[in-house]
C-alpha cells in the first residue's frame, strides 16, 4: 500500500483528467499537479479529435466543403457553414439577398439558444446538480424541434448554400417559432433565478475562477468568457456581418469576473437571442432565397471572415486559386484561445473546482483540434508515415 511519507511529499502528485474522463464530453488531456486538494500547476495536451479537415477541404469543391466544415463542430455547425459561405461569397463578389441573410441570422440566434441551453445543462451536471441538467435539456428539445421544422434535421441543419439559403420561413413555421420562444423565455427567467438565488449552487460558482479584466485581455479570451470579465468584445457589434447591421445586438457585459458572471452572461444572451429572433420574424424582408449567379470556379483571391459563434469569435481564412477547390482554408475557433485561461485560472483552486472552471469557458474540443507535434527525447523530430505509426502501435503492445 503506497504511503505518503515526508520524502514522497516532495514528489509531485499529478491527477490526469482525460482523455477519457466523465468530466469531459470530448477528449483532451489535462494534468493537474495537486497538493492535497489544491492545484499547484496545470498543463494541457490536445489533438485527440483532429481529423484533418483543413487539408480535406483542399480536395473538395466549393459546394462540398460547406458540409465538411459544418461538421467541425456539432453544436455550432450552422455558424461554421455561415462563415464559410459568407467568405466564399466575398471571394466571388456575390451578395446573398436580404431575406437569405435574415434567415441565416435567425438560425444563428436559434443555434445560440440551443448551444447555451446545452451548456447550462452540462455545467449543472459538472456541479452535481442533475435536476437542473435534466430540466434545461428538456427545454432544449423545444428549440431542437423548431430547428427540425425549419431545416429537416436537429443537428447539422445544412440551411446554407453558396449564395443564400435553401429553406424558407413560412407563416405556420413562424407561428410555431414564436410559440416556442415564448415558452423558452419563461423557462429562462426561472433558470436565471435559480443561478442567482440558489445558495448551494452559488457556493460552487461565486468567487471561483476570478479573471480580472486586465488578465482577460492579456490571455486573449473571447466570447462570453471575456464579456463576463468586462471586456466588450463581440463580433456582432464590432464588425456586423450578414443581417446584423439591420438587427443590432446589445452587448451583454458583467463585471463580477467570476464563474457566476459567466453563467449570467450566457443566460442573458439567451434573452437577447429571443429578442432578435422575434424582431427578424416580424420584419423579414421579401425576396429571393438564393443569389442568381454563383460561379463554380472562383478567381484567385484571399479573404478573412469573422463571425460570433456561441463560444466567441470564429475566424475563417479562405484562399482561392481559380479552380473548383480552395487553395487553403484555415479555421480558428474560439475555444483554442480560451483554453490557456483554464491553465492559469485553476492554479490555487480546489480539485473540485477544476471541472467547473473548465466548463465555464464552454469548451468544444472537436472545434479546436490541431495536429500536435510531440517531441520526445529518444526520437528526433521527424515526421512519421502511417505505416511507421501502425508498426509502432503493434510493437508497443507486444512488449
Amino acid at each position, binding site marked *: 500500500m503506497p504511503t505518503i511519507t515526508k520524502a514522497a511529499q516532495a514528489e509531485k502528485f499529478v*491527477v490526469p483528467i482525460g482523455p477519457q474522463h466523465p468530466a469531459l464530453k470530448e477528449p483532451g488531456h489535462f494534468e493537474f499537479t495537486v497538493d492535497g486538494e489544491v492545484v499547484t500547476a496545470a498543463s494541457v495536451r490536445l489533438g485527440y479529435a483532429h481529423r484533418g479537415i483543413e487539408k480535406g477541404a483542399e480536395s473538395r469543391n466549393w459546394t462540398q466543403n460547406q458540409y465538411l466544415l459544418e461538421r467541425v463542430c456539432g453544436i455550432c455547425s450552422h455558424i461554421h457553414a455561415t462563415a464559410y459561405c459568407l467568405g466564399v461569397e466575398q471571394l466571388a463578389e456575390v451578395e446573398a439577398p436580404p431575406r437569405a441573410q435574415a434567415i441565416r441570422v435567425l438560425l444563428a440566434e436559434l443555434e445560440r439558444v440551443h448551444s447555451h441551453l446545452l451548456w447550462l445543462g452540462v455545467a449543472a451536471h459538472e456541479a452535481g*446538480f442533475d435536476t437542473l441538467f435534466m430540466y434545461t435539456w428538456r427545454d432544449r428539445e423545444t428549440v431542437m424541434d423548431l430547428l427540425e421544422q425549419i431545416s429537416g434535421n436537429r443537428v447539422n441543419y445544412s440551411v446554407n448554400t453558396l449564395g443564400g439559403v435553401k429553406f424558407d420561413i413560412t407563416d405556420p413555421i413562424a407561428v410555431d417559432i414564436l410559440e416556442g420562444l415564448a415558452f423558452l423565455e419563461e423557462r429562462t427567467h426561472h433558470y436565471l433565478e435559480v443561478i442567482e438565488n*440558489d445558495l448551494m449552487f452559488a457556493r460552487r460558482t461565486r468567487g471561483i475562477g476570478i479573471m480580472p479584466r486586465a488578465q482577460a485581455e492579456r490571455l486573449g479570451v473571447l466570447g462570453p468568457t471575456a464579456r463576463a470579465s468586462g471586456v466588450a468584445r463581440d463580433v456582432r457589434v464590432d464588425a456586423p456581418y450578414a443581417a446584423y447591421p439591420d438587427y443590432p445586438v446589445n452587448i451583454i457585459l458583467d463585471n463580477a469576473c467570476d464563474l457566476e458572471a459567466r453563467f449570467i452572461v450566457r443566460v442573458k444572451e439567451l434573452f437577447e437571442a429571443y429578442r432578435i429572433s422575434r424582431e427578424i420574424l416580424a420584419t423579414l424582408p421579401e425576396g429571393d432565397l438564393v443569389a442568381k449567379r454563383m460561379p463554380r470556379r472562383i478567381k484567385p483571391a484571399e479573404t478573412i471572415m469573422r463571425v460570433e459563434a456561441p463560444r466567441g469569435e470564429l475566424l475563417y481564412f479562405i484562399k482561392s486559386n481559380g479552380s473548383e477547390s480552395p487553395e487553403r482554408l484555415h479555421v480558428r475557433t474560439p475555444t483554442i484561445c480560451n483554453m490557456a485561461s483554464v491553465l492559469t485560472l485553476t492554479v490555487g483552486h480546489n*480539485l*473540485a*473546482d477544476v471541472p467547473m472552471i473548465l466548463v465555464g469557458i464552454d469548451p468544444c474540443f472537436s472545434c479546436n483540434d490541431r495536429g500536435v507535434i510531440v517531441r520526445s527525447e529518444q526520437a528526433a523530430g521527424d515526421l512519421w508515415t502511417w505505416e511507421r505509426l501502425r508498426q509502432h502501435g503493434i510493437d508497443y503492445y507486444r512488449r
Partner: protein
Amino acid sequence: MELVRNVTALLIFPGGLFLLLAGLMYQWADRKLIAQLQNRLGPRWFQPIADAIKLLANEEIVPDGVNRLLFVGLPVAALAGALTAALYVPLFGFQPAFSFTGDLIVTLYLLSLLTLCTGLAGANTRDRFSLIGAVRALTQLFAYEAPFMLALLGPAIVAGSWQISEIITTTHGSWIVLTQPIGFLVALIGLMGKLEMPPFDSPEAETEIVAGALTEYSGRGLALFKLGRAVELVIGLTLITAFYLGGVGQGALEPAFFTLKSILVLGLLALMQSLMTRLRIDQTVGLWWRFGAILVLMQWLVLIVVKMVS
C-alpha cells in the same frame, strides 16, 4: 428449532437473501422517485437486480501494485458488516432477530465499517483517483458521524435505554418526530452523508474523480460494495423510521405499515437529493461541524432540560 429459526433469520428472511433483494428494490424506488421529480421515466423495476447479477458474473481484474488479500477481502468485510448490523434492527417491522444491551452503538459502528472499508480499498491502490476518493470518504466520515450518532441517540434518551428492541417498544405509538424535529432532520441528512447521496457525494464525484475509492474495482468486488450500500440504505431507513416515526408494535399489519413509513422517508430523501448541488469536501465538513453539530447539541439540551424537569 431455535437453531433453524436463527439460521433462517440470518440467511433467508428477513436478513440475508431477502435483505439483499429488498435493498436493491429500495434503490430502484429511490432512482424512480428521483426520475419522476426530474420529469423523466427512470429505470424498470429489475434494473438494480440485473446490474448486481451482471457485476457478479464479470471478471474481476486485480490491478498491479495492490495488496491482493486486502483487495479481495475488503468488499467481503464491508458486506459482512452491513449484513451483521441488520440483525439488530427491526427490519420491515419485524422484531429484531437478536438483541443485547448497547446494541445501538454496535449497529452504528458496524454501519461505519462499510465506509472504512471503502476508504481502505481506495488507499490500497496506486490510482490517483482512488487515493483522492479514499481521503474524501474518510474526511466525510469524520464530518457527519458525530451529529448522526447524536441524533439517533435522542430517542434513546427518551426511552432510557441503549438497546434497540427496548427503544422501539417504548416509543411505540408516540411519534418522536413531533417532539424532536431537529433531531429528525439531522438524522435524515446524516443518512444522506453516510450513503454518499447528493449533495454529499463528493467522495464519488463522477465528474471530478471518476468513481472515487472504487475506481479500480470491477466484477465481484464492485458488486459486493454496491450490495453493501443497498443494505445500508435499508438499515438506515429502518432505524430512522423505527426511532422517529412511532416505534414498532406487535400487530399483524405492523410490517406493511412500517414499510409504508420507510418508503415515505425514502421519498423525503429523494426530494432532498434532487434539490441540491454537490458540495465540495471542505464545504461539507464546514457545514457539518458548524450547523450539524450545533443543531443536534441544541436538541440534546432541550431533551436533557425536559427530562430533568419532568
